């Protein structure tokens, strides 16, 4: 199959169609508006349904309705829009409906800015909305991986009947990279099984509901959801460890696009003889704690790099359990760290003098002195 050059947001839309998703409900927001724009054009060509909702609140309830009648469905948004979808995501998770959503993160909090950021890590993985539930969260670090993970997201959503979020950032949405579309594992229409509301012909009626006024019944439902999350946690953790065949001086932990920046920095420093290893979770939830710990065990110390103020850092600390020193390099507001910023920080924490020809450009997080110690 030949590669084509595509913008991340458009590749996400095409990946959904290739996975057999013919229903999209969404609302425009920068930096992901190319997804609805692409699908508004493309879905009618393949007999699909595109609806521009009046708000993210409505869009998220439309996907609840569409998933409830048993079709494969997608919505996409960016940070403030995801906050507006949170309520419906709680209902969707409670009702165990398969939906896929994409968050192309932008800077926050509040209206923030339209440039890339990773400030929604905790929202996505820990506290999306009210009640005990989890999203499966997948973090691509390239346009190709975004395609693969969007397609994989539909499989996971349907296997576990759980909402799945693919979390990227403005960079992944906006940049163009060569991609190819693999044969989808899904593609056949979604099996409405014994739960979807398709009309009660020749069967007892079905109810899609998350109201349990009986506390014992609600308690049991929570335990059921938790047992499902346990199964997901055991079976679905994915991560990537790089340059860890031999022990390293320092391990860089990061996710999504930040990993690409860390990789460039690591390659530069490795050429100078500094042993830099890399670890990134592909599933932010369930977080691959054991794999992260195993990577940390190969390293002298750890530098966590994120485009936020230290959110995945909490999971890295949980994984490492105080066995290693952890430093943190963070940016926000749409400021993207450069490989030079990462290299400079590595040298700083390793106590090695910066190379004479190091970039004179000051790191935006230069004034941050609050070293994180696990």
């Amino acid at each position: 199959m030949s590669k084509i050059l595509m913008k991340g947001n458009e590749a996400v839309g095409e990946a959904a169609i290739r996975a057999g998703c013919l229903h999209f409900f969404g609302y425009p927001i920068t930096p992901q508006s190319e997804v609805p724009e692409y699908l508004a054009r493309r879905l009618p060509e393949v007999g699909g349904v595109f609806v521009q909702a009046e708000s993210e609140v409505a869009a998220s309830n439309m996907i609840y309705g569409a998933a409830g009648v048993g079709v494969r469905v997608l919505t996409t948004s960016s940070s403030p829009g995801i906050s507006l979808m949170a309520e419906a995501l709680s209902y969707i998770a409670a009702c165990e409906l398969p939906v896929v959503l994409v968050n192309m993160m932008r800077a926050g909090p509040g209206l923030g800015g339209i440039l890339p950021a990773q400030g929604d890590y905790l929202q996505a993985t820990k506290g999306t909305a009210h009640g005990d539930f989890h999203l499966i969260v997948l973090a691509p670090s390239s346009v190709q991986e975004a395609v693969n993970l969007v397609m994989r997201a539909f499989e996971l959503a349907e296997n576990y009947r759980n909402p799945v979020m693919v979390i990227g950032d403005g960079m992944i949405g906006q940049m163009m990279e060569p991609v190819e579309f693999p044969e989808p594992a899904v593609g056949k229409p979604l099996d409405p099984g014994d739960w979807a509301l398709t009309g009660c012909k020749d069967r007892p009626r079905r109810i899609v509901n998350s109201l349990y006024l009986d506390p014992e019944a609600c308690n049991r439902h929570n335990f059921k959801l938790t047992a499902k999350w346990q199964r997901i946690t055991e079976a679905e953790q994915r991560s990537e460890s790089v340059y860890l065949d031999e022990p390293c001086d320092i391990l860089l932990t990061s996710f999504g696009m930040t990993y690409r920046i860390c990789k460039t920095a690591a390659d530069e420093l490795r050429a100078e003889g500094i042993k830099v290893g890399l670890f990134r979770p592909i599933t932010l939830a369930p977080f691959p704690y054991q794999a992260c710990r195993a990577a940390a065990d190969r390293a002298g110390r750890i530098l966590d790099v994120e485009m936020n103020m230290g959110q995945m850092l909490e999971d890295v600390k949980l994984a490492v359990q105080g066995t290693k020193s952890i430093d943190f390099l963070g940016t926000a507001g749409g400021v993207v760290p450069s490989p030079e910023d990462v290299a400079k920080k590595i040298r700083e924490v390793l106590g090695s003098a910066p190379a004479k020809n190091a970039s004179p450009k000051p790191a935006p997080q230069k004034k941050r002195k609050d070293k994180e110690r696990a």
Partner: protein
Amino acid sequence: MKKIFSATPLLVDRPTHYCPGCTHGVIHRLVAETIDELGIRERTVGIAPVGCSVLAYEYFNVDMFEASHGRAPAVATGAKRARPELIVFSYQGDGDLASIGMGEIIHAANRGEKITVIFVNNAIYGMTGGQMAPTTMPGQYSTTTPGGRNVKEVGYPVRMAELIASLRTPAFVARAAVHSPKEILRAKEYIRRAFSYQVAGTCFSLVELLSICPTNWGLSARESEKWLEREMMPYYPLGIKKEPETAEAEVKRG
């Protein structure tokens, strides 16, 4: 002896949770009879709201959703667009539809979603214990308007049927009441028409039903019927507000 009246199979045979004197039961019955008479049970999906009728999914003997507060028209949009062969209806109260769900209902109607909305207006929040609704009458007592609804502070009651009828998109919009046998018959006719338009794939349809709430109005059922007729009906005139046939003609006239 000849049987002239019996339970409709479209309602589950169980007691409801509604208060004595409440007219939700009447409206449930009218909707259920309509679905039965049109022979659409096997392809109908209903959507229950948040409010007194939150448990409506327990009573309608069809596939049912429970939606979050106010969002039933968005859920209905998703369901109907995904499976256009389904007959999709939402059942919503005045807090759900006219307050928190104002955005969803207006836009579902304006897109011309081929869904049917049963809108129960009893001028009060029932389930939460009698707070002011957007439909609460001027001067009407509620637990959050202890001095009566002051229109200078909170505005006038919203006439949803007229508001939705003002949209350009063709639709069937009507208001009836369910406090007397005569008006119940008219309500049934409007509900039947509303569902029939959806079956034909014609347009969005909404029937507003003036309803009583003896518990939160602090009146007996009989007094409540009189209060509805005296206080609500002049402000909320009954009748058909919009029909797709005339609406189409209006659009053509420009």
